[in-house]
């Protein structure tokens, strides 16, 4: 019940906002909507915590340890982002970069996007999963091109085409999956339900599933932003409005990876080999290396951090590929903490670039002196991002790396290289931005501190103290994904 309410909320708010549009208090409504969703999701989590996984809407939806935490995460980050976007978009509005219609559009699409992601997470049906992924893409395409600048349009176009094509492959994969399943479960909706498939995955036809996984891998992999399917990502994340970049980097990638992992479970179950795992490892490594080296030569601040998203997603994918209790645990934790950290960073980045009126890193200077909260949050967030303790990402990377050197020692040096390079690259850029004296062109700004502080606090907490229920969920998920 809660589950349907949750989906209902975001969908209805999408509609409401579409009508409210550019009303003075639209941002507040937006916040309310996401807050309500967040609250409901926490209720949902509570139910799962108390009664374990369950399905709803006649097996159409279901929650288990795996997707519930991602759901809460999605709802939460969407809320904080909404809070952030209130200030941010107001400034954009004042700068006249967005107009009446676009604001309306922005808010509606924002909620629709959240709805799509929640649907993707909560649905039990692979077909619907696919649909909602596509929906998520479509709802953000026009947000990416919100500013109508040539670059924005180019980015959005690439995003649209590449993800469209990618996701189409995923559909083909789904068809094949259905093709394999229907022979066991009979024609009809039953054959695409995760709850059924996960039980009979052993009997699914390996040859078909192998073929299916290739397409699913490429399809959802495109959305995860795995190299070499990643090319849309830096453009889309850097050209859109910052709140959108935050949710894209922070949430959408997670959801896509979630889909991918679900599929992997089935394939592993049927083929019984470690094939899917090896594919994930390969893509993960490639992403880590390519992304970390690309980081070295970035000039645009948001672009740089979107590359780091690629890198981190690569790490998580790699970890899922490695498998085993520790690595998988690490991967789950990594998804959680990365999205918190990354969105926090995007918040600060958004303010920073508004203060300086540019995304050129060369022109952003003296943040700590200019606006201490933003500055410190930025540098601390960066430290967290590159995996310095005591922040959460360190915990996950610690687990992943140590597991790696046990499971696949010869890969450890590559990861080491990747991490080292990305660390050097990111810090090389961030340090001069936060330190030093305030440049003349820097303008003070009323920044939204709450979201940033909230996120950083959570990241720190997760680094120092991981709550028991979370780790229980992770452990059950680990069992699930074995």
């Amino acid at each position, binding site marked *: 019940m809660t589950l349907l309410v949750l989906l209902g909320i975001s969908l209805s708010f999408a509609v409401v906002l579409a009508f409210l549009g550019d009303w003075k208090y639209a941002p507040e409504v937006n916040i309310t909507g996401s807050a309500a969703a967040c609250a409901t999701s926490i209720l949902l989590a509570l139910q799962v915590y108390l009664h374990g996984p369950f399905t709803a809407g006649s097996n159409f939806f279901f929650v288990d340890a795996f997707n519930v935490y991602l759901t809460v995460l999605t709802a939460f980050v969407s809320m904080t982002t909404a809070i952030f976007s209130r200030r941010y978009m107001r400034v954009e509005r004042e700068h006249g970069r967005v107009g009446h219609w676009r604001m309306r559009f922005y808010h509606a699409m924002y909620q629709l996007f959240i709805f799509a992601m929640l649907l993707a997470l909560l649905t039990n049906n692979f077909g619907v999963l*696919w649909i909602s992924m596509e929906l998520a893409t479509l709802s953000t395409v026009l947000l990416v091109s919100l500013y109508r600048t040539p670059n924005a349009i180019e980015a959005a176009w690439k995003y649209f085409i590449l993800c469209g094509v990618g996701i189409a492959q995923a559909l083909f994969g789904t068809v094949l999956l259905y093709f394999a399943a229907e022979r066991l479960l009979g024609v009809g909706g039953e054959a695409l339900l995760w709850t059924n498939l996960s039980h009979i995955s052993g009997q699914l036809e390996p040859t078909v599933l192998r073929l299916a996984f290739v397409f699913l891998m490429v399809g959802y992999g495109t959305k995860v932003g795995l190299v070499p399917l990643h090319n849309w990502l830096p453009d889309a994340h850097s050209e859109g409005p910052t709140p959108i970049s935050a949710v894209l980097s922070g949430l959408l990638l997670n959801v896509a990876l979630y889909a991918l992992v679900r599929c992997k479970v089935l394939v592993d179950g049927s083929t019984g080999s470690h094939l899917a795992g090896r594919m994930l490892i390969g893509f993960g490594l490639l992403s880590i290396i390519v992304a970390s080296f690309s980081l070295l030569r970035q000039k645009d601040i948001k672009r740089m951090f979107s590359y780091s998203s690629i890198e981190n997603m690569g790490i998580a994918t790699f970890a899922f590929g490695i498998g085993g209790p520790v690595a998988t645990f690490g991967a789950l934790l990594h998804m959680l903490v990365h999205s918190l950290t990354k969105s926090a960073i995007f918040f600060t980045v958004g303010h920073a670039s508004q203060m300086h009126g540019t995304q050129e890193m060369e022109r952003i200077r003296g943040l700590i002196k200019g606006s201490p909260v933003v500055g410190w949050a930025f540098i601390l967030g960066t430290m967290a991002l590159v995996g310095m303790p005591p922040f959460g990402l360190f915990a996950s990377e610690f687990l992943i790396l140590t597991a790696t050197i046990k499971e696949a020692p010869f890969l450890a040096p590559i990861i080491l290289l990747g991490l080292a390079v990305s660390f050097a690259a990111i810090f090389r850029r961030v340090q001069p931005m936060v330190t030093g004296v305030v440049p003349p062109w820097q303008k003070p700004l009323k920044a939204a501190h709450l979201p940033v502080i909230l996120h950083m606090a959570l990241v720190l907490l997760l680094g120092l103290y991981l709550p028991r229920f979370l780790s229980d969920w992770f452990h059950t998920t680990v069992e699930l994904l074995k």
Partner: protein
Amino acid sequence: MPVSFAAQINSVMAALILLTAFGLLIQRRILGLLHLFAWQGLFLGISTAIVGYVTGVHHLFVSSILTLTLKVVLLPWILYALIRKLNIRKEIETLVNIPATMLIGIALVIFSYHLTAPITQLSSLVTRSTLAVALATVMLGLLMMVTRHHAVTQIIGFLALENGLFFAATSATYGMPMVVELGVALDLLIAAFIFGIFFFHINTTFDSLDVEQMAKLKEGD
């Protein structure tokens, strides 16, 4: 109508779809592309309907109707309207080395046959043999998107690719569950609107629909 006969018709349709796919690959004039695309949609719809008729899976009729309305009427119409509006109907697109493209296309067909052969052995469906064609169509659509550098033609390629997927859905399995079918259709519709909007934006900002000029965002040098 006996099953075998239906199967034959179905394979004829498959052949036609494949043919249109190749046609799309080498057609230069945009309007020609539109027509070919519409035809492909038609064949797709027909084959879906036949399968539905033969197997008595009734929601296939729905999806066939969906297909016909969307792919034969709506989308071509939207595209046509756009082309008119942006008056690019005359535009003749130069293609990269048609023979080469065709050879690659052939290779892809063979490849997809080789891939699907083992699977089709497993299936008991009358339509199973057409899976190869479906995959080939997907591939060809992709190939088309690679070789064309006009926004509209890329979109057409994309839609052709979608056709391939539909065909796969109906041929490999007797159609996906209804929800999925509808959802996919919905997505397709939204997509149609979005690229519609895009054509305007691209055209206004770059005053042409050539995607070649959208290569500003890149790394360094």
